[in-house]
């Protein structure tokens, strides 16, 4: 069944279902513990929600191709290369499927946050939109103390970050703390502003998906949208929210999915305008394995199900209420 993904600010039913479903996944035991994934620190049960945190981290640490020919600084299985958009599309599809399952609603579609509309506002107004209020996803803080993902030290069922990345090891470790946001902090640690609709329009005007040498700064739509060149669109959203959203464990903050759903929406608009094309094709060298059109996407899905080619047309799965 094809579902419709809607703007979270305009659709309160989508908002409420998203929050409810995310809280359910956060409290659903996956049957695994942190030890099963080699995560340091106290051994704790891993929720279904936190499996996605681990998945994102593992893909980020998977250099493509593996060392010594490459390292994560060039490209990895989910970022800094052409597969950035297909990999995150698959991630969203799998989260959406889990949300549908726990909500018992196969019509549920992930909502998106159209941050470019907020980016057109004056700087001071960008931080005071409804999204960051208690009725939506809560506000700023270390820890966040408002909204559905607030931290309450006396309530073990309140939102807890249980897996984080250590800055001095680069490895995952188990923790028990509240969610962290440092919204609109000044550079270099933060970003004062969000991307704008004009910048999104510029991205959509780039006709080439990606180009040699297929890395973080190659010329093309993918790189411009991911943030390696130009106004750093997607990267800037992570940095603007800050805190957990800035780290390699960024899916710890549910706004990760609202951000990436909007990134995916922009890609869908590009595919509609420029055709369902992708680069590189399979004539590219083995050093691009993991990024070519028929290479398996680093995911639990089989290679016959998840490749960049397989996710270019998702009309049978979902559509967006409005494309930019």
């Amino acid at each position, binding site marked *: 069944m094809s579902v419709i993904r809607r703007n979270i600010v305009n659709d309160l039913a989508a908002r409420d279902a998203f929050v409810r479903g995310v809280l359910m996944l956060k409290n659903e035991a996956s*049957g695994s513990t942190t030890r099963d*994934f*080699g995560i340091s620190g106290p051994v704790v049960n891993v929720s279904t929600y936190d*499996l996605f945190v681990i998945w994102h981290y593992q893909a980020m640490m998977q250099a493509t191709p593996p060392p010594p020919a490459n390292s994560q600084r060039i490209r990895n299985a989910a970022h800094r290369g052409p597969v950035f958009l297909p990999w995150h599309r698959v991630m969203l*599809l799998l989260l959406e499927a*889990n949300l549908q399952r726990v909500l018992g609603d196969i019509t549920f579609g992930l909502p998106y946050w159209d941050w470019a509309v907020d980016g057109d506002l004056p700087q001071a107004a960008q931080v005071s939109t409804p999204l960051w209020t208690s009725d939506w996803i809560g506000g700023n803080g270390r820890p966040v103390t408002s909204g559905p993902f607030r931290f309450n030290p006396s309530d073990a069922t309140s939102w807890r970050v249980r897996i984080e990345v250590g800055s001095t090891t680069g490895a995952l470790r188990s923790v028990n703390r509240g969610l962290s946001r440092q919204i609109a902090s000044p550079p270099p640690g933060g970003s004062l502003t969000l991307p704008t609709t004009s910048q999104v329009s510029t991205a959509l005007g780039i006709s080439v998906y990606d180009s040699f040498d297929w890395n973080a700064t190659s010329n093309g739509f993918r790189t411009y949208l991911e943030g390696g060149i130009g106004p750093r669109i997607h990267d800037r959203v992570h940095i603007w929210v800050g805190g957990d959203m800035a780290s390699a464990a960024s899916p710890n903050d549910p706004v990760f999915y609202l951000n990436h759903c909007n990134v995916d929406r922009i890609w869908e608009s590009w595919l509609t305008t420029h055709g369902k094309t992708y680069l590189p094709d399979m004539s590219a060298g083995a050093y691009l394995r993991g990024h070519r059109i028929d290479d398996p996407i680093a995911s639990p899905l089989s290679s016959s199900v998840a490749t960049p080619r397989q996710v270019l047309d998702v009309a*049978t799965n979902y559509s967006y209420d409005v494309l930019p």
Partner: protein
Amino acid sequence: MDAKKLARGASPANLGGYLKKRAASSHGHLTHKQNSSSSRTTTHNGHKIVLETIYRVTIDGKKYDLGLLADDQGNVHCHSLPNYQLQSALDMVRAIVEQFPDDFEKKQKKTTVAHKHATSRKGAVKKPVSKGK
């Protein structure tokens, strides 16, 4: 994408099983210690050039391996903050300190004791202990 295959692949058991295999096959190498230095290579006018960059970072007198890497464009990259791409390595360290304050908290014990003595002797108004950013 086939909805049934998608639903099967999305199950927590399937996703967890996949991630366990990935973790096991990494043999504990999912850290940035293996890549704390950058080796950039190119050829120019028939010469093969290798440029190695190693960042040795000390914060408050303590050495840290922060996994800073230089890419071919000279930008500094870091595993723990994957969305940052800065021209200044100093700015990257500043960003890390800002985003991971708990990893770099100064020990406050001596300051606190001295502060208590000062306040008890002079009856001064208590001031918050500085957190050293």
